[in-house]
């Protein structure tokens, strides 16, 4: 009887230990947030489709092409922006190009961008994918795809932001859309990013 009880006890312990190990492993993975290592979409530099308007940076160092469904919008004096905005003022598509202004570097660009987002206007920001040595028309860049929530309005956006180094200049191109519509918006936005030309 004692031997039977001892055997049954060990069996129960073994089962419980297995369950605990599985649960702990699951919890650890969940708490780590999983891997952000999504595949970065292919960016093949190509001229913008015919009919796409262009905006040249005020310093003349890069050209942003944008779909005809977007319109130029105001921004920093040294940058150019185009957006599709709903009648109620909701940004549906957003493109921006800005000359490098600070300590942006190709190496570590993704971390820099996330830090800048949370230091500037985002309550939170999370990297989804990143890539280096991305070919651009006239240069090479580092890109990050991330999602963030704005401090004002708690708007949830997803973006691709690339620091592009040309022969004589460097600049940043940003393409964003509400996170909820990113899947639909991203092909057009990525097309605009692929058409970005730097000098």
């Amino acid at each position, binding site marked *: 009887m004692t031997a039977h009880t001892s055997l049954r006890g060990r069996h129960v*312990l073994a089962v419980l230990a297995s369950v605990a190990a599985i*649960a702990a492993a699951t919890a650890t993975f969940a708490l780590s947030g999983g891997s952000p290592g999504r595949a970065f979409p292919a960016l093949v530099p190509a001229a913008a489709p015919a009919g796409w308007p262009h905006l040249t940076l005020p310093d003349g160092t890069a050209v942003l092409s944008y779909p005809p469904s977007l319109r130029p919008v105001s921004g920093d004096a040294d940058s150019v922006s185009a957006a599709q905005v709903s009648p109620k003022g909701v940004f549906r598509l957003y493109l*921006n190009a800005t000359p490098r202004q600070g300590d942006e570097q190709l190496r570590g660009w993704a971390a820099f961008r996330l830090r800048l987002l949370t230091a*500037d206007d985002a309550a939170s920001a999370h990297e989804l994918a990143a890539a280096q040595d991305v070919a651009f028309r006239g240069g090479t860049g580092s890109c990050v795809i991330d999602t963030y929530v704005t401090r*004002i309005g708690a*708007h949830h956006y997803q973006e691709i932001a690339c620091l592009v180094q040309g022969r004589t200049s460097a600049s940043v191109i940003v393409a964003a859309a*509400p996170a909820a519509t990113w899947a639909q918006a991203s092909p057009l936005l990525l097309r605009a990013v692929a058409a970005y030309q730097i000098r």
Partner: protein
Amino acid sequence: MSLTFIRSAAGAALLAVLAAGCGTAATAQHAATKPAAAAQPRHSAPAHAPVTTPTPPPATTAPAPATKAPASSANPIPQGNGGDQDPDNNGGPSDGDGNI
């Protein structure tokens, strides 16, 4: 191996399972709250939210001792139509500036 020990070990294992389960649930809850923020009405995107700034002390008062900068000083560009008045300072998408 005594029955008491077995019960104690089983209890400890159960606690581990419960603790792990709580961690997973907390993470799931955290993730589930994100879409809620995103689901907020977006029509207020361009709204110029009021910015509350601390009222400066009267000029007649003695100089106040050095105080720590408010937490919001980590944000170099004021939000709520402040600073450069970019869309991203009003709830719009962030531009590519270097925060200069």
